[in-house]
């Protein structure tokens, strides 16, 4: 494991699409270094030949027949949209 001191919080926050204030930046960096230092303990464990567990029990893909089912009405589906017009969600312009 890499030393946790190399945590580049700006790069991580950009990947997470999360704007941080200068105070948050400083505070989270320090706290995460603490948490990562605690996590470093996992280096002690010999994991040679151990398979990773993603789920406690095997998960299989589930196939459903391609049959139309009743779903939400347009009104219900858009009820929580921050901005809408003509049954569409309004977003800032993406392409000039």
């Amino acid at each position, binding site marked *: 494991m890499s030393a946790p001191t190399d945590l580049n919080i700006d790069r991580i926050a950009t990947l997470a699409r999360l704007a941080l*204030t200068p105070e948050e930046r400083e505070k989270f960096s320090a706290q995460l270094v603490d948490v990562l230092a605690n996590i470093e303990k*996992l280096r002690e*464990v010999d994991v040679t030949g151990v398979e990773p*567990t*993603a789920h406690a029990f095997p998960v299989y893909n589930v196939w459903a027949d391609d049959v139309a089912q009743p779903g939400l009405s347009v009104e219900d589906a858009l009820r929580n949209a921050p901005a809408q017009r003509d049954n569409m969600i309004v977003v800032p312009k993406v392409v000039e």
Partner: protein
Amino acid sequence: MSSEIFNKSIAELAALLEAKAITSVELTRAVIARTQAVEEKVKAFNSYDPADALAQAAASDARRADGQARGPLDGIPIGIKDVIAVTGQPLTASSKMLANFVSPYDATVTQKLRQAGAVIWGRLNLDEFAMGSSTENSAFHTTRNPYDLERVPGGSSGGSAAALAAGEAIATLGSDTGGSIRQPAALCNVVGLKPTYGLVSRFGLIAFASSLDQIGPFTRTVEDAAIALQAIAGHDERDSTSFKVEIPDYRAALKTKKGPWRLGIPKEYFGEGLDPEVAAAVQKAVDYYRSLGCEIKPVSLPHTEYGVGVYYIIATAECSSNLARYDGIRYGHRSTEAKDVVDLYFKSRAEGFGPEVKRRIILGTYVLSSGYYDAYYLRAQKVRTLIRQDFLNAYKEVDAIITPTTPTPAFKRGAKADPLAMYLCDVYTIGVNLAGLPGISIPCGFSSGGLPIGMQLIGQPFQEADLLAIAHAYDSKHDWSRKTPNL
């Protein structure tokens, strides 16, 4: 049990309803009145809708008058953690991000409770997006422990535990990712059950860490937990991780499964950091099981000390991925300050999420990022395998495992401002989620300061019938859970 109607168990109330000694409307009115009387102190709810609850109660009474009553939950008011969808009601996750969100559909568990006739009652507070162990991370308000209002109720399902302890519901639902049902249950003197991963559908549960999350009930007795689990368990084609297993009659199993059982005591759960009063209370419960003829065996779960580290890698990784959906576009908070669409993501997320959620997104993004994935995430998944194997090895020798649920009774509000200190509260509950096992916390005493103490029983995968029977053998012969707080 207390004579007050709002403090009775589901089983007691079901008998009174069946005998027509009370109606659901009377019961629901009593719960609403109790809520209005104590909620200012407890602050367990984000919102509640008395008219909606009374309409459901009237429908229940009408069914019963017609001879169409649906079983023990018909007419019983059940509170719902505010991460589980209820059609037409707010669904906030105690986050500014979803402050104005209204559920367009029911979660599967909500539908199942309705089919059982339950009165769906109120939206219960939690740590924002279920991330925390004290309910102090709610963006709206901090829920109090009904046994001491200066102390936390635990979390993340603190509202669910506190409401039940305070008589503001007859049972409640919560969700448990690293202990979020069992830990608050222990701190609030109620029973909290986290079922085996995959037993209860997660459809309609706001996702935190999808490989760990599981919905379960808070109740006043183990018998009530059996009744509630019966209603919500079972395969759901809308949740691909839901398992096709036969659902037994859990309540009947409490009588038919009599033991004596082989019970394991893991030494790693009784070491440094455990409050002596908690240790003594759990030891006394173990002695009781011995007096029933159970064989008490020491077992070892050698990878226990790595549980918190594994959990905070896997849970934050999954959370960073799950919470990517909150982008200010289709639903949730949208910033009005953004200059373009990418800026809209950055600002909406910055304004909508609270500090703990941001911290976990950052940590999760870091452990998944290029160059760190193998060192953190992949290694954590491998250690998760070892933790799971520890439990399965122990189950070659014992039927269930007994531990304290929490290292200490309820702590004071603001006492764990350091995130790492808060994360370490979950040390005894996390392994169960990582291994996908069922776990139940049941009341087993009080500290000298009058604070509740819980013990955790951990069962084998999908063997809830045995786990509940073992818990019932203790709970039905002790009256800890019959004590109620002075509010």
